[in-house]
């Protein structure tokens, strides 16, 4: 002990994208506190969108300037290629989701009011709105950005919570079907908290083993400490519980269908894209940087998880009758496919690069398609709000061919039909896996894809080949925001399916440097 503690250095420049988002979130809170009610919405939206844009711009600028090769904030936050790629993706998807969120009618006027009570009526009458949604979303987005960049398990934990806590709340804010919404919030919250306890306990064990929470240092410690393997295994397993919970890996997937179904659809879109991307970013970082030397141990375990996840997702989706639940199961299955990519890593640099770039590309492709799909879900409504039950979708292709066509296209992308983005995503992952020697996993993946194709195709059958019900749901004229979302998502799905090269290049160069240590 020299008595002097060196002052921490913070690379504000590198962290600027994060800081912008968090800053904007805090501004949002202030707006909520001080701005008059009727102005709030008008102030929030520009702030939110602008902050996301600025943040994105900063990332682009930084990318052009050159990707940093050293972790920022005393090694706590790694602003490296993959992190920046993920940031960019999350920001774009968040931007798109905000457009969706901004649409009228998704959120309850007063969350505290009992559903069906006079109080609620009053709130609706007054046009009350939970404008807190915007800062909450920004906080969540900030958390999503921090999570995959966390180079320290403590930061990871904090990021996890920063990302999750606003989402718990957002889940409970649906205007219609409020019982479901509240139930979803509660389930998500309790299970989320439960799983982060596991994550934290695992962190503690790792700390006990390595005497550090810095991922790089943990990685360096592996194999140098004798007789403490128990701590390491326990820690690794527990951490993976927390991470797998977030991506919905089996057997930790149970929350996903319920929460996806109950949450307001724009929030589901944000979760299904952003959270998944963030969680995968974190998972990959933790398991490569910190536990990369232990891959012989975690790889078989993940192998089992991946197989189970793909099969559970694909098989359970088949008999779903609710479109949002079905998409949730589909998201589980896609999580399984992505896990193949995680397992595909190997010792060789090139192999790791191709696996990582595969994962990154898949995340982009899936993220856009899924936001687009949920955006379409928001537009198909009947008297009771969004028409979730699949039987209500019958004959949609005849009523509004364009919308149904776009949705069918998204579904085909989910199914991984060539000339859609989903195909190249899957291809990139499978290819990395085959090269990495995980052929058997790819075969399971292929079988799961075939099974999964069934329920995507079934929706197309309903929309196009069945006759419409007499009192079928109508398609609301999309607001400019929603239309933009659907259009952008469709465009991304096409472009990534036909000319994936630019994005592949980006993902590749992001993955090239791998993670900073």
């Amino acid at each position: 002990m020299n008595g002097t503690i060196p002052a921490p250095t913070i690379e504000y420049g590198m962290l600027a994208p994060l800081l912008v988002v968090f800053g904007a979130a805090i501004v949002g809170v202030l707006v909520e506190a001080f701005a008059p009610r009727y102005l709030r919405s008008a102030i929030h939206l520009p702030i939110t969108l602008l902050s996301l844009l600025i943040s994105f711009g900063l990332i682009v600028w930084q990318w052009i300037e050159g990707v940093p090769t050293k972790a920022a904030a005393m090694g706590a936050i790694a602003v490296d290629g993959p992190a920046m790629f993920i940031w960019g993706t999350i920001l774009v998807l968040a931007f798109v989701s905000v457009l969706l969120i901004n649409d009228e009618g998704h959120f309850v006027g007063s969350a505290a009011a009992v559903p069906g009570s006079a109080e609620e009526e009053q709130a609706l009458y007054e046009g009350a709105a939970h404008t807190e949604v915007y800062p909450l979303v920004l906080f969540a987005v900030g958390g999503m950005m921090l999570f995959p960049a966390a180079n320290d398990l403590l930061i990871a934990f904090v990021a996890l919570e920063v990302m999750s806590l606003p989402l718990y709340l957002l889940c409970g804010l649906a205007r219609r079907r409020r019982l479901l919404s509240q139930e979803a919030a509660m389930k998500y919250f309790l299970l989320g908290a439960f799983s982060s306890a596991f994550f934290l306990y695992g962190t503690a064990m790792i700390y006990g083993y390595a005497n550090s929470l810095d991922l790089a240092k943990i990685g360096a410690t592996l194999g140098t400490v004798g007789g403490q393997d128990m701590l390491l295994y326990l820690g690794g397993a527990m951490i993976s519980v927390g991470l797998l919970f977030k991506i919905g890996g089996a057997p930790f997937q149970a929350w996903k269908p319920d929460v996806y179904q109950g949450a307001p659809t724009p929030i589901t879109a944000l979760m299904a894209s952003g959270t998944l991307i963030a969680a995968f970013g974190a998972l990959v970082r933790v398991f490569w940087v910190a536990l990369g030397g232990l891959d012989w141990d975690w790889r078989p375990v993940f192998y089992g998880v991946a197989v189970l996840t793909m099969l559970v997702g694909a098989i359970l989706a088949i008999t779903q009758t609710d479109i949002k639940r079905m998409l949730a199961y589909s998201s589980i299955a896609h999580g399984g496919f992505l896990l193949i990519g995680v397992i595909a890593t190997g010792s060789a640099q090139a192999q790791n690069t191709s696996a990582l770039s595969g994962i990154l590309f898949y995340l982009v492709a899936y993220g856009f398609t899924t936001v687009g799909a949920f955006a379409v879900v928001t537009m198909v409504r009947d008297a009771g709000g969004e028409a979730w039950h699949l039987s209500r979708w019958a004959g949609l292709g005849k009523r509004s061919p364009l919308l149904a066509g776009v949705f069918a296209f998204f579904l085909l992308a989910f199914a991984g039909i060539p000339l859609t983005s989903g195909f190249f995503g899957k291809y990139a992952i499978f290819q990395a896996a085959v090269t990495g020697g995980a052929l058997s996993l790819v075969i399971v993946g292929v079988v799961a894809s075939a099974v999964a194709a069934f329920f995507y195709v079934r929706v197309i059958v309903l929309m196009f080949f069945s006759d419409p019900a007499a009192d079928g749901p109508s398609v609301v004229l999309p607001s400019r925001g929603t239309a933009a979302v659907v259009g952008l998502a469709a465009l991304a799905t096409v472009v990534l399916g036909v000319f994936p090269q630019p994005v592949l290049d980006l993902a590749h160069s992001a993955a090239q440097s791998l993670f900073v240590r």
Partner: protein
Amino acid sequence: MTTHYLVLSALLFAIGGVGVLVRRNAIVVFMCVELMLNACNLAFVTFARQNGSLDGQVIAFFVMIVAAAEVVIGLAIIVTIFRTRRSASVDDASLLKH
């Protein structure tokens, strides 16, 4: 010596975990989660002591703050659902299934 604390921490964590599984009241379930977090804190502090570094103790503070934030959110959600359903039993909220 520190092993005992670790065992205690593990026990607390397990008790918390089992509590989540067996208790119906949402508040109690949530408290059990808090118990698990605190078990983690105990482990952090123990390891800090064992390894002779301060990090673990600092971490414990971080965790407490996060836990506090979690309480705020959690109670808000639980109270809302209680107001709606007049029940704090987690088993009553099971509309979303299959």
